[in-house]
C-alpha cells in the first residue's frame, strides 16, 4: 500500500466557484488593461522609431491604451480565442474536471454579462453559440510547477489577425539553424502588416510538430524582457530581433523600424532526423491577465 495523502501539511484547496469568478474577471480584464511590460515596450519603440508615419501610428496605439483604461473599454474589438494556462503548484488540491467546467462557465458569463463579442464558431458550420465557447474552446493548457500551495491561472485572449500568422515547417537536420533563421525572417515578411505589428514573434525550435507550435505560442505570449531558458535559444532571440526590425515593415506594415517588440524563442529536444521550426505571432495588443491562488488569497495581475 502507498500513502494517498501526505500527513501534516494542509493542501491549498481551490473551489470551482472561485475559478469560475476568476475566469470571468480575467477575460474582461485582459481585454481592457495591457500588461506593464507591453506598455514599457511601446515607450521603448516610440523612443527609437525614426519614421514619421510609424511614430504617428505608435502614438495612436499608446493613446488607445489610455482611452481603453479611462473609458473602461476593450483595447481591441477582437476578443480572440480564449486561452487559459493553468499552473498547478505543489500540495494543491483541485478537481480537474470541475476546473475545466468552471473556466468555460466563467468565459461564457464574461461574454454574456459584459457583454463581449463571441468570436468563436463551429469550424465547419460556422455556427456561433455566443458564449466564446465551443468544442475544445476555451483552450486550456495545464502544467505543473514547484510553487508551494499555489495555483496560477493565466488568461490570453488571442487575437485572430496575429494567430493567422502561424507557420510550421518540419525542416531536416541538413538544413541546419540557418534554415530556421531564414524561415523566421521569411514568415515575418509574409505576415507583413496583417498581424498588427509591432508584434512579438514567437518561435518554437525542436520537439514534435504539435509541441513545436505550442512552444511558439508560449514564446509569443511571454512577457517582454523575459529570456529563453536555453542559452542557444536566447542567442537566437537577440539575433532574430535585430534581423526582423531591419526589414522596414514597421507598425501596421506601413513602414518603419518598429516591426516587432521582440522575437521570443522556446526550445525543446527533438529527434535525430528532425529540425522543426514554428512561428506564432502576437499582435501589439499583447493581452494577458492572471490570478494566483495561495493560502493568503487571490492575487490579480498580468
Amino acid at each position, binding site marked *: 500500500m502507498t500513502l494517498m495523502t501526505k500527513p501534516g501539511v494542509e493542501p491549498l484547496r481551490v473551489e470551482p466557484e472561485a475559478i469560475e469568478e476568476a475566469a470571468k474577471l480575467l477575460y474582461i480584464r485582459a481585454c481592457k488593461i495591457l500588461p506593464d511590460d507591453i506598455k514599457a515596450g511601446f515607450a521603448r519603440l516610440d523612443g527609437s522609431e525614426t519614421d514619421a*508615419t510609424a511614430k504617428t*501610428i505608435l502614438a*495612436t*496605439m499608446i*493613446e*488607445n491604451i489610455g*482611452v*481603453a483604461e479611462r*473609458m473602461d*473599454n*476593450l*483595447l*481591441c*474589438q*477582437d*476578443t480572440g480565442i480564449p486561452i487559459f494556462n493553468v499552473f498547478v503548484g505543489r500540495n494543491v488540491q483541485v478537481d480537474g474536471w470541475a476546473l475545466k467546467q468552471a473556466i468555460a462557465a466563467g468565459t461564457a458569463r464574461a461574454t454574456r454579462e*459584459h*457583454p*463581449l*463579442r*463571441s*468570436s468563436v464558431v463551429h469550424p465547419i458550420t*460556422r455556427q*456561433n453559440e*455566443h458564449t466564446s465557447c465551443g468544442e475544445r474552446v476555451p483552450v486550456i493548457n495545464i502544467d505543473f510547477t514547484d510553487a508551494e500551495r499555489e495555483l496560477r491561472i493565466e488568461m490570453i485572449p488571442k*487575437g*485572430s*489577425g496575429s494567430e*493567422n500568422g502561424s507557420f510550421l515547417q518540419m525542416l531536416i537536420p541538413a538544413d541546419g*539553424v*540557418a*534554415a530556421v*533563421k*531564414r524561415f523566421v*525572417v*521569411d514568415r515575418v*515578411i509574409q505576415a*507583413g*502588416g*496583417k*498581424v*498588427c505589428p509591432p508584434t512579438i514573434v514567437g518561435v518554437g525550435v525542436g520537439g514534435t510538430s504539435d509541441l513545436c507550435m505550442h512552444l511558439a505560442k508560449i514564446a509569443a505570449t511571454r512577457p517582454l524582457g523575459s529570456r529563453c531558458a536555453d542559452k542557444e535559444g536566447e542567442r537566437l532571440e537577440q*539575433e*532574430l530581433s*535585430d*534581423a526582423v526590425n*531591419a*526589414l*522596414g*515593415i*514597421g*507598425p*501596421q*506594415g*506601413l*513602414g518603419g523600424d518598429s516591426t516587432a517588440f521582440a522575437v521570443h524563442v522556446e526550445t525543446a529536444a527533438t529527434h535525430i532526423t528532425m529540425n522543426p521550426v514554428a512561428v506564432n505571432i502576437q*499582435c*501589439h*495588443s499583447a493581452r494577458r491577465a492572471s490570478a494566483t491562488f495561495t493560502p493568503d488569497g487571490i492575487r490579480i495581475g498580468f
Partner: protein
Amino acid sequence: MTHHVLPMPITEAQVRELRAGDTVTLEETLFGIRDATQIHMFDRGRRTKFDLNGHAVVHTAPNLRKVERSGTNHSGYEAVCVGTTTSDRMERFTRPLMEREGVRIIIGKGGLREGSLDAFRDLGGAYLAVVGGAAALETTWIEAVEDVDLDDLNPESLYKFRIKGFGPLLVAMDAHGGSLYATVNAEAARRRQAVLEKLGAA
C-alpha cells in the same frame, strides 16, 4: 499630403482626388462589413436592403449591447467596442463590392492586394488604413449603430453606423496605382538578402 474631410457618400471624382499618403476624416455614415457578410452576399447571392452606392465600408465585427429600438435607432444595438479587422482575408470581395454595390472606400488594416488596387483604378476607389487594435479610440468616433441587415450573421452582420470625425485615416491605396503596402513590401524584399547574410543564413 492633403487632409480631406468627406461627408459620406461621395462621387467617383471625389475618390479619385485621394492620393496615397493623404489623410481622410469621414463624416455621417459608415457601413461595417466582414468575412461572413461578404461570403453570404457574393457566394450565396444574398442582397442587402442598404444602398451602399458611394459609401465607405469598414472591415469590422463589433462588440454590441442589445437595447430597445427607438427614435433613429433601428438596429436594437448600441456600440460597446468597434474596431477594424485584417483586410487581406476579404481581398476577393473588393471588386464585386464596388461593381455590384457601388462602394467607393474600404477601410481596414494590413492592406489589400494587387487585385484590389486594380479595382480601385478601374472603378474609382481607395483603401484607407485605420490603426488596427486601437478599437477603444475608434469607438469614440461612432455615434450610433443606426441600423443592421443580415443580422442572422451576428456579429458579422452588415451594420450602418452614424459617425463623427472618423479618422484621421491614411490613404494607403489609391485609384492611381499607389499602394504604401506594395512600397513597404518591395523594400522588405530588397533588404532580405542583407538581413540573411548578417544572420549567416543567406
